């Protein structure tokens, strides 16, 4: 979604200046009709096709979380904790939905500072069925309710990813408190920093006003206005990092929070000694497959319009995912002697994560390479690195989402190169796609590091706060008996 924005925003700014310069150039001015006085902006209509696609994409992203992610996770835990994990995910979707409409959308997608938005749209104030939200094209809008719902599903899945890290050992009251705190103080700021901008229409209008300005004072005022519009964006957006569908906001963010949670909450009783195999890989297979299906809404939907970028994101989300599933499976076959279903499923998720930021920028062959790398990189982390350090990231949230996210974020900065089949970064001045390796890669690295620090430190503090208020762990007896019975008074299978 947004990353495209970033580029476009930056470029639009440059373009605006260029246009302004052109119009002020006396030699050009002779061949160009005198700029008319700033015309009233034409009324922007909501595009029906874009709106329909975004509604579809929105429910696909919900499908990723429930039941996709929920089933994927539930199959990986022991029978006695099945309902616990399902409840964590379902709870997260519902509570974040409520928080989102009350203050989350406002904090994320209104101006304020470059770190966090304001309260202008508290309780969705001022939004009605005729309200519009910007896309990536000037003069093309979608219904604001569609945008609110689409972004709501992203806010819901991100904290839901974290629950895999502390699965089987965090009591429900602690989860119930942690999720709202985390989404408020970690997710909303990061999403604002990466995805908030004034929008193409505002930039276009400011640029046109500058172009139309005739005397010095008017020019100065128009330039100040344009600067103000350009500065009305999140911090990472202004840094120029590109992230098509949320590699940083969703996956690195949740992944590092998962690692911190695994460390702060501590290991499961019997970790490394007792058998803790997945209780139903059939369930996990269904879940992972639904994740893949829903992810098309996530990635292709992040185009915000039903234009060529959406199918590009779709084909990349097919190719990278299949490549990562195969690279994980074959690497495991070579190293461990047997190809496993869980390996293929894990690779599938790793590929989806890695292609998320790249989906609208890389070409299909770039996505293929990205997927192959992501599968092996994540396999290495969930086996070798995890065993080396002995942390109990139960369902490998860090190993898959954070590592896959970092591979994707850095990979995006490389694979966007036109020479590698990528789209390049659109340069509005020349109307050609360009690419500058060094600065782009540096922007990507800065965005990764910022997300790791914000989410890592923020998650640590919030978990400590939760520990002080309600505690994190159930009693030893409760944990041994299983969270389904002790936290929820129900069991997954009555047979």
């Amino acid at each position, binding site marked *: 979604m947004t990353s495209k924005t970033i580029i476009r925003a930056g470029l639009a700014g440059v373009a605006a200046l260029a246009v302004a310069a052109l119009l002020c150039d006396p030699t050009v001015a002779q061949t160009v009709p005198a700029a008319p006085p700033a015309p009233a902006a034409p009324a922007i209509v909501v595009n029906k096709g874009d709106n329909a696609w975004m509604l579809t994409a929105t429910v696909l992203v919900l499908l990723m979380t429930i039941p996709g992610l929920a089933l994927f996770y539930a199959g990986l835990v022991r029978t006695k904790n099945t309902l616990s994990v399902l409840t964590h995910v379902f709870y997260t979707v519902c509570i974040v939905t409520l928080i989102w409409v009350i203050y989350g959308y406002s904090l994320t997608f209104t101006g304020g500072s470059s770190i966090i938005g304001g309260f202008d749209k508290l309780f969705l104030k001022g939004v009605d069925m005729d309200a519009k939200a910007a896309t990536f094209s000037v003069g093309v809008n979608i219904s604001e309710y569609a945008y609110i719902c689409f972004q709501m599903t992203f806010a819901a899945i991100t904290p839901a990813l974290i629950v895999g890290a502390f699965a089987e050992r965090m009591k429900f009251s602690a989860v119930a408190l942690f999720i709202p705190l985390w989404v408020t103080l970690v997710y909303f700021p990061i999403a604002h920093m990466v995805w908030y901008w004034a929008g193409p229409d505002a930039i276009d209008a400011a640029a046109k006003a500058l172009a139309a300005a005739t005397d010095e004072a008017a020019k100065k005022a128009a330039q100040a206005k344009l600067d103000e519009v350009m500065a009305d964006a999140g911090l990472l957006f202004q840094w120029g990092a590109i992230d098509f569908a949320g590699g940083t906001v969703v996956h690195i963010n949740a992944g590092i929070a998962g690692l911190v949670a695994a460390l702060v909450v501590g290991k499961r009783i019997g970790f490394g000694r007792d*058998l*803790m*195999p*997945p209780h139903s890989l059939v369930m996990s297979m269904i879940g992972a497959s639904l994740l893949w299906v829903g992810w098309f809404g996530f990635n292709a939907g992040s185009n915000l319009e039903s234009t060529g970028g959406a199918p590009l994101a779709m084909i990349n989300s097919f190719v990278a995912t299949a490549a990562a599933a195969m690279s994980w499976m074959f690497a*495991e076959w070579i190293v*461990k002697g*047997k190809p*496993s279903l*869980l*390996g293929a499923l*894990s690779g599938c998720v790793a590929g989806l994560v890695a292609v998320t930021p790249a989906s609208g920028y890389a070409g299909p062959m770039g996505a293929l390479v990205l997927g192959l790398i992501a599968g092996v990189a994540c*396999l290495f982390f*969930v*086996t*070798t690195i*995890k*065993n080396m350090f002995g942390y109990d990231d139960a369902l*490998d949230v860090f190993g898959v989402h954070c590592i896959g996210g970092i591979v994707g974020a850095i990979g995006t900065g490389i694979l966007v190169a036109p020479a590698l089949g990528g789209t390049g970064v659109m340069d509005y001045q020349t109307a050609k796609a360009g690419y500058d390796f060094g600065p782009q890669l540096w922007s990507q690295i800065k965005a990764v590091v910022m997300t790791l620090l914000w989410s890592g430190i923020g998650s640590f503090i919030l978990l400590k706060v939760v520990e002080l208020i309600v505690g994190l762990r159930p009693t030893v007896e409760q944990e041994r008996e299983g969270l389904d019975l002790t936290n929820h008074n129900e069991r997954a299978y009555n047979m």
Partner: protein
Amino acid sequence: MCAVGPNVTDAMKRITAIIKPFKLDEVRDALTAAGVHGLTVTEVKGYGRQKGHTEIYRGTEYAVNFLPKIKIEVAVSTDQVNRVVEAITAAAKTGQIGDGKIFVYDLDHAIRIRTGETDAAAL
């Protein structure tokens, strides 16, 4: 002496066999051929010389000590015992470690609940 019948301790035997799960159908067919017309089957777990096996999930190896097996129980008259044991052995054998074991016990009484028939008549 028990009042239920003559030669109480010699008349019947209970045979319990622990076999590989996928051998159940062959063993059942063999028992039917050997004249055994009823048996009880239980899914059980355990280990013997086969020990366990290793399962690997996302690179983490789990040593599974208790392997799934099938326990078959049949009650037969003593004169059938050799035939039945041979039938089970032949049908359940793969030659690999973990084929299972057969145990033979004395059986004191048998009663058919529906008719009240006892011992050999109840089998």
